[in-house]
C-alpha cells in the first residue's frame, strides 16, 4: 500500500496559514511576528526538510532491516491505523521528554525553542541534527512489533502536520472535551514557556492524555502569561548558530571536564547541569521559584 507524505502535501497550507496569521496579528496590532525571527524559523524548516531527504535513505534502510525481525505481520488493516496512531503518539511523548531532560538530545531539539515568539512559523523552526542524535531509532520499536515502515512514516508525518497548527496565540481555548484529550494551542504554549512552573511540561504530540498519565501536564494559567524562548536565550537569528550552539557548548564544557563522570554528565545529564551544583537545571529553577514564592508569602 502506498501512503502519501502528509508533510509534503501540507507545506503550501503551512505557508498560507502563516501569511493569514501574520495578517491577523497586524490587524490586531500584535507583535506576533518579527522579520528576522520568521526568516530564521523558515530557513530552519527548509534545512530540516532538505536534510530529511539526505538522511531519509538511512532511516528507510534501517526500517527495512528491522522489519525482518518483526514479531507480527500487522499490515494495513483499519485497526492498524488506530493502533499506530496511539503507539506512535506514545513514542513521540517519550522522544520529546528525552529531548528535554537529557542534554545530548536537547542539543538536537533546543533550536525549536529558541524563538521568543510563538506563532505558526515557530512550528517550522525544526532540528538540523535530530537524525544524527539517533532519536529516529525509537520508532523502530513499531517496525519490530510488525507495523509496516510506510505506515509508521505516514503516522509520523500526520503527527508533525498536527503539531503545526498548535503553535499559535490566535486560538485561546478550544471546547473542554478537546482540551481534555488533545494537545491544543493552550497546552503547547505552556510547553514553549520558560516560566518556572511551565518549564519542561506538556510533551504531548497529538494526545495530551500522555502528560496527564505520566505526571507532566500543567494547564495554562491566564494569570501567568507564557514567556517564550529558552532559559538562557541565545540572542541570535543566525540559523547556523541556532542549529549548532548547544553542540558547541557541550564540546566546550566537555573539554573542561575534570573527570570522565563529569564529562558524561555534561553530555547526558539534564540541560544546565554543573558539577559544582551551580547549574540552572529545570529542577533548580523550579526550586528558586518556590523559594521566591515562600518568601513572598511569608512577607505578606
Amino acid at each position, binding site marked *: 500500500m502506498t501512503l502519501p507524505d502528509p508533510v509534503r502535501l501540507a507545506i503550501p497550507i503551512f*505557508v498560507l496559514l*502563516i*501569511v493569514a496569521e*501574520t*495578517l491577523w*496579528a*497586524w490587524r490586531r496590532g500584535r*507583535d506576533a*511576528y*518579527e*522579520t*528576522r*525571527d*520568521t*526568516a530564521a524559523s*523558515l*530557513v530552519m524548516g*527548509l534545512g530540516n*526538510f532538505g536534510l530529511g531527504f539526505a538522511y531519509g535513505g538511512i532511516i528507510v534502510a534501517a526500517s527495512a532491516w528491522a522489519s525482518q525481525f518483526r514479531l507480527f505481520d500487522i499490515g494495513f488493516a483499519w485497526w492498524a491505523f488506530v493502533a499506530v496512531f496511539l503507539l506512535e503518539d506514545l513514542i513521540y511523548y517519550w522522544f520529546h521528554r528525552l529531548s528535554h531532560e537529557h542534554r545530548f538530545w536537547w542539543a538536537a531539539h533546543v533550536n525549536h525553542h529558541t524563538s*521568543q*515568539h510563538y506563532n505558526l*512559523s515557530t512550528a517550522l523552526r525544526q532540528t538540523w541534527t535530530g537524525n544524527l542524535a539517533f532519536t529516529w531509532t525509537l520508532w523502530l520499536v513499531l517496525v519490530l512489533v510488525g507495523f509496516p515502515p510506510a505506515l509508521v512514516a505516514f503516522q509520523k508525518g500526520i503527527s508533525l502536520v498536527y503539531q503545526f497548527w498548535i503553535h499559535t496565540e490566535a486560538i485561546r481555548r478550544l471546547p473542554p472535551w478537546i482540551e481534555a484529550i488533545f494537545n491544543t494551542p493552550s497546552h503547547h504554549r505552556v510547553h514553549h514557556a*520558560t516560566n*518556572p512552573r511551565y518549564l519542561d511540561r506538556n510533551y504531548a504530540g497529538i494526545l495530551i492524555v500522555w502528560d496527564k498519565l505520566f505526571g507532566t501536564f500543567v494547564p495554562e494559567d491566564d494569570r501567568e502569561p507564557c*514567556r517564550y*524562548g529558552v*532559559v*538562557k*536565550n*541565545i*540572542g*541570535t*537569528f543566525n540559523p547556523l*548558530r*541556532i542549529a*549548532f*550552539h548547544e553542540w*558547541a*557548548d557541550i564540546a*566546550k564544557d566537555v573539554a573542561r571536564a575534570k573527570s570522565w563522570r563529569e564529562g558524561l554528565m555534561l553530555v547526558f545529564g539534564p540541560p544546565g547541569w554543573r558539577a559544582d551544583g551551580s547549574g*540552572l537545571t529545570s529542577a*533548580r*529553577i523550579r526550586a*528558586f*521559584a518556590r523559594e521566591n514564592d515562600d518568601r513572598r508569602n511569608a512577607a505578606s
Partner: protein
Amino acid sequence: MNWLLILGPPIGVLVVVLIVAATGGTRRVRLDAALARRRAVEDIPGFVADDCLIGDDGASALISDRSSPTIAVAYAMGARVAARKISRRDLRSWRAETGCLVLEVDDFAHAEFRIALADGLAEPWRLRLSTLGPAGGSP
C-alpha cells in the same frame, strides 16, 4: 531539473518574510530601566535587580545583582527583550571603546555584547566589571 522545486522554497520564504516586514515585523523595542530590570529578574533565577545602566540607543542595558557580584545584560531582540547573566565564568574580557562598551563572553551563540555609551563608563560599573573579568582596553 525541476526549477519550481529548487526555486519555490526560497521564493516562498522571501515572500513570507517580506509580508512580515510590511506588516510591522521590523519593530524594535526600546529598553527602559523598568523593562530591563524586570526582564533580568524573569530570565535569571535568583537575580535581584539593583542599579541599571541603559545604553544610549535603548538596545541594551547592564543591571547589577544585589545578591551576588554578577551583572546581567538585557538586550533587544527585535520586538522582544532577553537577558543573560554575566558571571566571572562567562566574561572573557571587556573594554570601553569610543562610544560603546564591549563585553566578550564565552558563548557560541552570542559572543559579544556592544552597549552604546557615548559618555563613557561610570566608575561603579568599571569596578563591577573589573571584579568579573579582565579589562582589555580603556576609553
